[in-house]
Every structure is written in structure tokens, then in C-alpha cells.
């Protein structure tokens, strides 16, 4: 039935599918490196560090979106949760508490929001979109109330701020941290039964229950793990920005969703995956970074991210259909 030539053709088109987005990113990068408007600045090490460093927080935020998304649940509170964690950890740092405690507090606040989301979804049975949207609005209110709308900039320890600005062998430390976290999430999703079970939950929840998975427990934990990652993103954001702005989180929600959806169009086509997220973020970052240098207006970034979100989903749906629906 399957003649070998046809088979290698199948393999080839599969790997084409897997790396299309990466090729596109490289193509765009080359374009900006050659284009007169950007050729001076774009292909420099400094610019690479700026772009790469700037994406570290987004990578972690995207992973926070990814975990519930694999379970077929939306966590719209990731941005707000990130903002809360950065304010919490920054105020602990500013109060002179040890760094470990401050970081821990940020992570804990993220996980706790996840617990709240998870309980509301599994125990009360409210739709996750509603729950996380409501929770994010509440978080926003609480943060505004506590900070009076002002950023925390004073008294942050240099040791933590250095994490956001230093590089090792030209690679921003904060990016390395984000990649390590991505590696851990990859391990969780690919090399543990738990990760498998999340994918099963997303593919067919009814069947997942019937093969004996603890559906409610998995659902609950996906929000907690997602919350923890949002917390981590918030703590990193303090290092990156050198401050904790009360509404910093909102700017992350859309790009994180865009990247998480786009991940299904790269590396492992047809399924949301960690390295697909990283590739998607690279793709978006190269475009945004280039446009930025070219002096394009800020709203261009909105335009790019919005378009990427929709076309990413469309691409993923198309790939899934082509692989047989």
C-alpha cells in the first residue's frame, strides 16, 4: 500500500509543515538585516539581546496559557496574574525581605490565583472563560487599590535587576531562565504521564473520564500549574523592567494567546506544544522588533499580533484538517 517514495514524500511535507514558521522567521530576519531602513541596527548583537531579552517574560506567560489550553480551557487571567505577581514580589523586595522570600511570594500568589480559578471551574462548574475573566478584573482592582496605580521602582535589589540586564556569552540571563522553564514544561508535557493526560483531556474529555482519568483533578491542576507559571513570568518581569507597574500584565494576554495558538502550527503541527510556542514568539518578536527599528507606529504591533492570532488559529485548523478530520 505505502510505496517508499510516497512515504518519504509524506515525511518531507510533514517536516516542511513543522518548520514553516521557523523558516518564515529567518526570512523576515534576513529581510530586516538587508533593508536599508533597518540594516544598521537590526543585525547587531545589541539588538539581538534587546529582542531576545524582551521575549523572556512572554515565553513564560505563553506557557502559562499553554497548559490550560492543552486541556481545552482558556485562562484569560494570565496577564492580570502576572501583574499581581510582579507587584507582590516587588513590594516584598522593596520591604527588604530576602530575595528568595520575595520570589517565592510572587510564585505563590500566581499559584493561588490558579487554585481559585481551578476551584471555581471544577467545584462550582462555571465556564473557565467567565471565571478567569472575572478573576482578572478582580485582580486588576485589588492591584490598583494596593498600589494606588503607581509603579514600584524604589528599593529593588540590584542582584535581581541584574538578572534582567546581564548576559552570559551574549545571551541574556533572563532568556536562559525562560528557556530552562520551557524545558521543564516540555519535560512535563512530553515525558510524564501527567502531560499525556492533559492532551487526552483536551482531545476528548468524556473518553478521558471513561479510561479512568481523574478529570476534575487534572482540570484543577492545569489552572494551578498555569497560575504558577504566570507567577514566574511576573517575577521575571520585575527583573526585566526594573519595576513593577500595576497594569503591566494586560499587554501580555493577547501576545501570549497568539503564540500559544500559533504553537499548533509549528514543530508538532496540529497540537499545542512548547517549542512551537518558542518558535511562534521568535517569529512575532522578529517582526515586531524590525518594525520597531524601522520606526513604525506602535499600533502596528497590535495589528501584527491580532493578525497573527487569527491566522495562527486558521493555520492550525487547516493543518489539522489536512491531516484528516
Amino acid at each position: 500500500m505505502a510505496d517508499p517514495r510516497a512515504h518519504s514524500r509524506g515525511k518531507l511535507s510533514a517536516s516542511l509543515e513543522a518548520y514553516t514558521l521557523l523558516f518564515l522567521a529567518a526570512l523576515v530576519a534576513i529581510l530586516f538585516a538587508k533593508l536599508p531602513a533597518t540594516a544598521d541596527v537590526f543585525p547587531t548583537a545589541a539588538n539581538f539581546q534587546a529582542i531576545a531579552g524582551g521575549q523572556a517574560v512572554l515565553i513564560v506567560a505563553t506557557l502559562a496559557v499553554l497548559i490550560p489550553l492543552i486541556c481545552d480551557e482558556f485562562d484569560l487571567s494570565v496577564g492580570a496574574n502576572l501583574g499581581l505577581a510582579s507587584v507582590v514580589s516587588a513590594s516584598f523586595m522593596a520591604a527588604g525581605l530576602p530575595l528568595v522570600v520575595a520570589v517565592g511570594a510572587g510564585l505563590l500568589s500566581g499559584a493561588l490565583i490558579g487554585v481559585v480559578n481551578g476551584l471555581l471551574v471544577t467545584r462550582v462548574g462555571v465556564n473557565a472563560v467567565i471565571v478567569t475573566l472575572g478573576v482578572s478584573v478582580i485582580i486588576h482592582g485589588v492591584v490598583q487599590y494596593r498600589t494606588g496605580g503607581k509603579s514600584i521602582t524604589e528599593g529593588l535589589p540590584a542582584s535581581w535587576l541584574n538578572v534582567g540586564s546581564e548576559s552570559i556569552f551574549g545571551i541574556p540571563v533572563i532568556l536562559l531562565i525562560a528557556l530552562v522553564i520551557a524545558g521543564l514544561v516540555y519535560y512535563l508535557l512530553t515525558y510524564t504521564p501527567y502531560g499525556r493526560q492533559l492532551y487526552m483531556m483536551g482531545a476528548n474529555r468524556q473518553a478521558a473520564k471513561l479510561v479512568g482519568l481523574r478529570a476534575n483533578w487534572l482540570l484543577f491542576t492545569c489552572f494551578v500549574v498555569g497560575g504558577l507559571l504566570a507567577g514566574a513570568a511576573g517575577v521575571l518581569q520585575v527583573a526585566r523592567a526594573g519595576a513593577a507597574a500595576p497594569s503591566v500584565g494586560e499587554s501580555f494576554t493577547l501576545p501570549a494567546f497568539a503564540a500559544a495558538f500559533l504553537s499548533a502550527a509549528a514543530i508538532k503541527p496540529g497540537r499545542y506544544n512548547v517549542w512551537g510556542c518558542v518558535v511562534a514568539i521568535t517569529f512575532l518578536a522578529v517582526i515586531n522588533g524590525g518594525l520597531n527599528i524601522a520606526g513604525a507606529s506602535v499600533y502596528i504591533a497590535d495589528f501584527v499580533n491580532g493578525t497573527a492570532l487569527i491566522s495562527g488559529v486558521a493555520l492550525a485548523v487547516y493543518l489539522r484538517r489536512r491531516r484528516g478530520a
Partner: protein
Amino acid sequence: MTFRAEGITKRFGPTVALDGVDIELRPGEIHALCGGNGSGKSTLIKTITGVEIADSGTFSIGEIASAAPDVTPARSHEWGIRCLHQQGSTFGSLTVTENFAAGVGFPRGFGGRIDWRAARKHSRELLEEFEIDASPDQLLEELRPVTRQMVAIARVLQDRSDSAGGVLILDEPTASLSAADVDRLHEAVVRFAETGTMVMYVTHRLGDLPGFASRATVLRDGRVVGELGASEIRHDRLVEMIVGVSEEELLSAASSHVVDASARDERLVLKDVVGGPVKGASLSVGAGEIVGVAGLVGAGRSSLLEMVFGTQEPQSGSVELDGEPLTWRSGKPHDQVALVPENRVIDAAFLPLSLTENIVATTTGRCWRKGFLNHRAERAEVRQIIADSGIKAASEEAPFQTLSGGNQQKAIVARCLRGEPEVLLLDEPTQGVDFAARAAIHETIRTAASEGLCVLVVSSDLEELVLMCNKVVVLVDGVTTSTVSGPDLTPENLERLGFGEVVSSV
């Protein structure tokens, strides 16, 4: 006027699903399309209806011809081609009228509102025209499966311009119907054919075809192996063409299942179980025993299995395994019990995930070594399972949805056995499964049983129960009325007992 498909070819990546298929339908004929699982039947139908785009070939109806790749669902519809696809879709929670409207839309009244009176009238006319025993406001889920199937057929046929001519395609319409219901459906199909409709009919129940089909085309691996006229359509002949070996060879490979009934300990014991449609069921299954549950649809067969599985709570009575009660765990299945559910797509399949992930679904932890899932070991194990169960797929990494229906079913059975359960529950285990695969599944289950597993199987296919089981318990209106075994175990006896009749020799 005839419908002709010529040289239809369709590839899915490396898989050649159809390889130059020719078929001709004639007015007034019922043309059976036969072939093993994954032989390309559904794919051929999908190319005819424009759901899948063929790579090459031509279709012609009467004088009109069209290149096969140009066929769209709209054009196929225009040609008068109507199809009930394999995973026939009716909406259980909607009424008959709403189901009819799902095909063509509701009649509209002033301001675009739905004209319910006209809609009901239309559906009453349809029910009458197709001789369906239902009322417009009944919910589909309240109807008998055969009636539901008739509603689905009427839905696809309702907007033909004239009742004569046109093509009606039925892809496995009888997969979960009882023998009596199959007859009723056949009567209806014969009526359509008599009005001049060209019927294409897919089934794995080869025994249904002699005397019913006027012609048969057999597919194997995407190629036509032959066409038979009405007089040549015989069970053994079909099997030989479908599988490529004779029926005797196939059956001689399967060992007969002999168990010594007296020397066995009872392992699974149900006493006066009540819950849902089950009103009082008692039975026992010994080690290595395969026990069937017969009865009409609605007699509570599936509910009975669910109460043993642990997803439905018994109101009273007891379910014990080896003397230990299987206690209710808020709907979580019991660890020692595995179920092959009746509805594969809704209850068992993870369609977007790979074949491997589907097979190891209940046993993901098995290849977990030193903190890592060993993917290579997992794939090797799965490759072995694929070979042993005769599953046909592009690779072990193929998305589950690209497997044909019968191959998905084999994979679900394999999944259940991989979990090494004490009790295996099977609900219509061989629906949509071809002759050879059915024998293979039976053999797999027998082998598993011979190692001491208890098997409880529900099937509308009474022949299958007789073939597989040591004894069969008959459920009538939720009550276990009798147990048949030995020489009394015949399809005829089961049929009569299922209707609540008393069989003298029992």
C-alpha cells in the same frame, strides 16, 4: 440512466486509499460495496459526495460527466446524490421535525421567523411518505435505533425533485441494529430501489446480502477485486474475495473455545442489580468465561455494563468481584474493569492524538522509567500490538482520526487488554468491523479469557453471541429472564427470548 465512477484514485500522504476504482450503479439496483476495514469504502463514498477531493478519475450520471477532482458537495447534491455517512448524524436531543430541518432549513414565515406549523406539516408528510412510525414532536433519542436511522434516511432524501432516479448511498446503516430491525430497514431500501433509485449499500454483515443486493463490488486495499451478480452473492464467496483466503482457512485458524463449566470459580457475581432501565439483573461470570447479554435495544444492556464498570450507580443489589463488592466511587471506573464502549467516537477515541497515545491511554505509566516516559519502548510495544491485532495504519504515530472505523475499534479493544483487567466489558465490540477482523477480535478475547479474565459482552448480533459466548443471559425490560448455554444457544432462541417469549426446551 446510470451512475458511473471510473478510475477514481485518492491518496492520503503515503496511503493509497483508492487506486483506480470503477463502479457502476443502475436504476432499481441495490449495489453492495464490500471490503475489509480500511479497504477504501468510505473514502470512495466521500469522493462521490465531494466531501473528499479525489486525485483523479471521472464521474458520470447519464450523459453528464465530470472530472472527479471537480466534484463538490453542491454539485453532487445537484446530481441527485444523497448519502448517509458512516457516522450517521442525527441529533438525539432534538425533535423529528428539527432533525428534518437540519438538512434543508426551516420553512420561514413573516419576518424570517420559523413557521413551525409548516415545518410540522412537512415532517408529517415525510413520516408518511417514508412509512416511519414516529410523530413530528418526538425526540430522536426516544425512538428505536431503526426508526432513528429511517429518519436520517428520510432527511437526506427529502429534497429530491422527483422520487425516481437519483443515487442513495448508505454507509453501514445497520451497524448497531438487531436482526429484526435490519429486515425493516431492508424493506425500506427495497422500496426506494423499486422506484428507480440507484442504491449503494455498505455493510460488514455479509449474511445480509444474499437475496437483498442485486450486485456487489468488492474492494481490497483500494482496488476493485471483482463484481458479483445477484446469483453469485454468497457469504463464502464474498469472504474469499474480501480477505483473499477462503473462509475455512480463516476459521480453522481460530481455535474453538472449550471451557469446563463445572470446575470454575465464580468471579464476577451480580445480584438483583437495579438502576436506570435495569430492573433486576442477576448473573455470574466465572474465571475464563465469556458471558453474553442479549435483549432488545432499551432492555438495559448498556446500563448493566455501566453499573459493573462503575460509571452508573446501582440503586440496589450488589456487584461483587472475587467476593469483594465493587463499591461506587462517584463515577470513577473500577480499576479491575475495562470497557469497550458502544459509541467509539464519543466515549473512547482521542481523534486528534496518535494511534500510540490512544492505545496506551489507560496505561500511560507503563513505560515511565527513571522519571521519563520512554517513548522508544512505548512505540516498540505499540508496534507489537499493532501487528498482533492486525491494525492497519500509516504508522504508530498516525493521528487516530485517519484510521478507518474498524481499525479504530481494534485499537480500542487492544487498549483495554493492555490494562490487564480482571473483568472485560464489551458493548457491541465488532460493530463496523470486517469479517477477518471480527474473527481476530474474537480470538483476542478468547485468548485473554483463557488466562482467567471474566468477559461480559453485549451485542445486537446474535450470531456473534453464539459464536463467542459460553452462555448468554437474556434481558427483557431490564430483568434477566433466562440463561441459555450448550445446544440451546442458537440465534433463533435468543431472538425469541429477547422478545419475552418462552422457549420450550429451556
